[in-house]
Each structure stands twice: as structure tokens, then as C-alpha cells.
């Protein structure tokens, strides 16, 4: 499997991230009734000791919604919020009296899962339409913990196939304030399929 991305491979993955994240941002903006912006997605092919660089390092505490991506382009989607962002999001949506990401109520937990589900769903339906592939997801699951601890789950699944993880990662902002991350982590097979769909050489 690949150990390095060529320019055209990188470009394609960035484009895929842009399309998915754009749709997810629209879904978030509709949900909050506020303007949401995104950065240009960052595409990294990394060894497992670098998977949490983008979200603030291995010990960064995050509320993470994890969805398995099934169908024609298997992989994982992670929708992540750092503590303050999770608290703001729940407060803005008026869910519960006071939001404390380390002590979420069951209602707040299901709200975060549902938000993750909606964002991942818009991301993947855009990706499915764009590539003409059939994609669906598992039910959303939530953990509030250190970044590497939550990453361990998708990385273990990936570790059976590869020593590298392809991370298509983006940030959401509301008035310059970080409001969350969305990561798509295709399996090596799904990554090769994406390259083939767009006629990009998988073995450059």
C-alpha cells in the first residue's frame, strides 16, 4: 500500500475533503442558524504515532463521534469537538441547563451523537453523489477522552492492513472560533478505489 502521496493523489483527496466538509458545514450552519466556515482540508498519510497531530496531539481531550463507513468506500468518519467547542455547541442548541463536556447528561450525549451523525451523513452523501458510490454508516458512537485513545479504535482496524493512515481532515469555524473537526479515514482499498474512479494513478 502507499507510503507517500503524489501531488495528484494529494489534490484529489483534498478535493474530496472539500466537497464532503462543505456539505457538512452547511448542515452545521442550518442546525445552528449561524455562518460556519471551513479551512482547506489537510490530507496526511501518517504513521500511527502522528494521527492526532491535527487535532492538538495525543492527549487533547475531545468529544468524539465515531461512525464506521460501510458500502463501496469503507473507512471511518470521526466528528470531534474539543471541550469548549462541545460546551458552546450544546449551549447554542439549548440542550440541557449547563453543558460540561466531562459530565454530559444522557440527553447531551445523544445530541452530540446526532450532530455527528448529521454532519457525517452530509459529508458522505456528498461524497457518494460525487463518486457515484453507495455509502452508508453504522450508528454513531460517542467517547469523551484523549485523542489517541479514541483514535486507537479506527487505527487498530486499519493496522491490520497497513502501517499508515490516510487522514482527510478539516476544521469548522464560527467567527474564527474552532467549532469542531471532521475526519474521513478511508481504508487503503477505498483510497485506491477513489483514485481509480478519478483516473489518478494509484502507483505513482
Amino acid at each position, binding site marked *: 500500500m502507499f507510503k507517500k502521496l503524489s501531488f495528484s493523489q494529494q489534490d484529489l483527496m483534498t478535493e474530496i475533503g472539500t466537497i464532503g466538509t462543505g456539505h457538512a458545514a452547511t448542515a452545521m450552519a442550518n442546525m445552528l442558524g449561524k455562518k460556519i466556515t471551513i479551512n482547506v482540508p489537510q490530507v496526511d498519510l501518517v*504513521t*500511527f*504515532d*502522528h*494521527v*492526532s497531530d491535527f487535532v492538538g*496531539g*495525543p*492527549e487533547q*481531550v475531545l468529544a468524539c463521534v*465515531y461512525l*464506521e463507513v460501510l458500502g463501496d468506500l469503507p473507512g471511518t468518519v470521526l466528528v470531534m469537538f474539543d471541550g469548549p467547542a462541545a460546551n458552546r455547541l450544546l449551549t447554542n442548541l439549548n440542550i440541557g441547563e449547563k453543558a460540561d463536556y*466531562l459530565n454530559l447528561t444522557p440527553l447531551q450525549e445523544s445530541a452530540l451523537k446526532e450532530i455527528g451523525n448529521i454532519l457525517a451523513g452530509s459529508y458522505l452523501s456528498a461524497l457518494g453523489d460525487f463518486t457515484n458510490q453507495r455509502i452508508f454508516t*453504522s*450508528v454513531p*458512537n*460517542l*467517547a*469523551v*477522552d*484523549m*485523542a*489517541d*485513545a*479514541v*483514535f*486507537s*479504535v479506527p*487505527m*487498530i482496524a486499519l*493496522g*491490520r492492513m497497513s*502501517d499508515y493512515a490516510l487522514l482527510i481532515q478539516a476544521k469548522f469555524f464560527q467567527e474564527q472560533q474552532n467549532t469542531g473537526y471532521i475526519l474521513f479515514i478511508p481504508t487503503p482499498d477505498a483510497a485506491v478505489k477513489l483514485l481509480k474512479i478519478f483516473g489518478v494513478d494509484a502507483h505513482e
Partner: protein
Amino acid sequence: MNSQIGMAQYLVLKAPGVIRSSGLGSCIGIALYDPFTRVGGLAHAMLPKHRPGRDDNKGKYVDTAIDAMLAEMEAMGCNRQNIVAKLAGGAQMFPEQDKEGKVSVGEKNVAAAQEYLRELGIPIVAEDVGGHSGRTIELYCEDGTLYIKTINSETKI
């Protein structure tokens, strides 16, 4: 000397070295320690067993990480009969999803480490495994203490 290892890595150091690994979730932290030479090794392994014929990273698997640490420790003058082990990690991070059949991947990693160490005759003198929280661990080669931190607790074994 304070050194950090990440997922799928391992490191062996002499006292007064400290080896740290952050955010173990379903992965397993395996600490090996020889109190006589005060040499310690720490691995952050992801999967139970390597598959023969694949040129994978050694730190990724419980068995190959243990073998690699033992080889380095012996090369540094440790006697295998003096080496003891401590385990931490193997949590189930996502209650409904993180499992294959009835056993979580974390539990499988713990079982693999226990079994392989037993096979090698290396005693496990302490462990802090399972549960639903990520752990950050630090092995002090001075005395073999393993410090364990979660986002809401701290302990040492």
C-alpha cells in the same frame, strides 16, 4: 531523559530514563523491567499477533513488540530471568461498536499480552487494564514504577 513513544512504537532505556506514552485506548501498554540492571522497556502495541510473512512495524503487535524489547534489553546486559512485566490499557472506548463478536479489541490485546508473557515465563507483577477510559502511562526506569493517568484519575502500579 524523558522520551515519548506513540502508537505502534516501543523504546528501551536505562535508569534514570522515563518512557512515556499518551492516550492508550484499546491499545495495550507493555512495560518490561529488570530491577538489577535498571533497564526498562515500554511498548504501545495495537494488535495481538503479527502475521507471518508481512514486513510490518514490530511495535504494532504485542508479540513482536515484546520480542524486540527483550532482544534490546538482553543486548544491554539484562538477564531474562530477572525481567518482570506490567500491563496497562486495553480499554473499550466505544461501548457499542468497539468489538468483534463478544470480545472487545482491548480485551483481545490484554489476553494476548498475558498469554505471550506466560509462554515466555515473564511474570506480570501488576496490571491496570480494561474499563472505558484512555490512559497515559510513564515508566520510570529508576525503580520500574508505572504511572497511569486518565482524564479523571491518577494511579501508579
